[in-house]
């Protein structure tokens, strides 16, 4: 976990140092294909684990119920804090969206 975090911080530092390089803005385009590849590999890892697949129905249903419960509870709480949270982030987000909105929208449509 900390290796992953360390790599991200290294990337941030490199990104900051190499900011003027013209090829750097092209790199984020490769994030989506790598995410797809990672999901494919996760699928392979689950499908290739015989024990996990054999017990998937038996314990998976219990696990699914607990996951759905936990996620639903989290989302309900998020809906409750959303207005208050917005007050803390709106200032930055507003100015951010002003310049970043088109780019984000473009990314979403792209995928």
């Amino acid at each position, binding site marked *: *976990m900390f*290796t*992953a*975090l360390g*790599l991200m*911080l290294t*990337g*941030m530092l*490199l*990104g900051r*140092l*190499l*900011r003027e390089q013209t090829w750097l803005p092209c*790199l*984020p385009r*490769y*994030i*989506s294909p*790598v*995410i*797809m*590849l*990672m*999901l*494919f*590999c*996760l*699928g*392979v*890892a*689950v*499908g*290739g684990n015989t024990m996990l697949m054999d017990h998937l129905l038996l*314990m998976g249903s*219990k*696990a*699914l*119920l*607990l*996951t*759905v*419960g*936990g*996620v639903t*509870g*989290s*989302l*309900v*709480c*998020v*809906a409750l*804090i*959303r207005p*208050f949270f917005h007050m803390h*982030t709106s200032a930055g987000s507003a100015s*951010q969206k002003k310049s*970043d909105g088109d780019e*984000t929208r473009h*990314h979403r449509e792209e*995928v």
Partner: protein
Amino acid sequence: MGGSLLILLCFCSGLVLARLELVPHWLLQDDVVLWLLWLLMLLVGLSIGSDRRLGEILRTLRPGVLLLPLATTIGTFAGSAIAALFLSYTLAECLAVGAGFAYYSLSSVFITQYKGAELGTVALLANILRELITLLATPLLIRLLGPLAPISCGGASTMDTTLPVIARYCGREWVFISIAHAMVLDFSVPFWVMFFCSL
């Protein structure tokens, strides 16, 4: 929605191909996913570091950001407690599973040690599922409840595994909130899991 379907298709094709034994053996190693994750983290870092508005994003962070991990914790426990009504496990056992917050490696080891292999396996599956739901449903969650939803859904994984997806779909301005959220939850996982296992 197209993004979610594409991600789902990638996951399912991997699962089916592995089940049919049509993938090379080296792809079954966990290291492949780990290397891809590290590559993603480096790409996300480069993306953030090269952003000229980095300083502005950092200035937007307030103590109120801590509300998000608090909401995730309370919501997860409440949801797990409701799920416990329909399961044969005790309330404390269900809360211990929920307290993994998608940090499946650590929580399942703890739970296996304190409560046995069966609950440990359920914890592993439940927390993998939570991570998978975040990876697969992030675009849909953003559309329904905004950028806070996938961050809360991802639990402790929003600092690593699900961070690239969150950065991609929520926008880079949410990356620091996502990391702060995961860090708080990350450090709370051992405490909560051990607490509920001891009850």
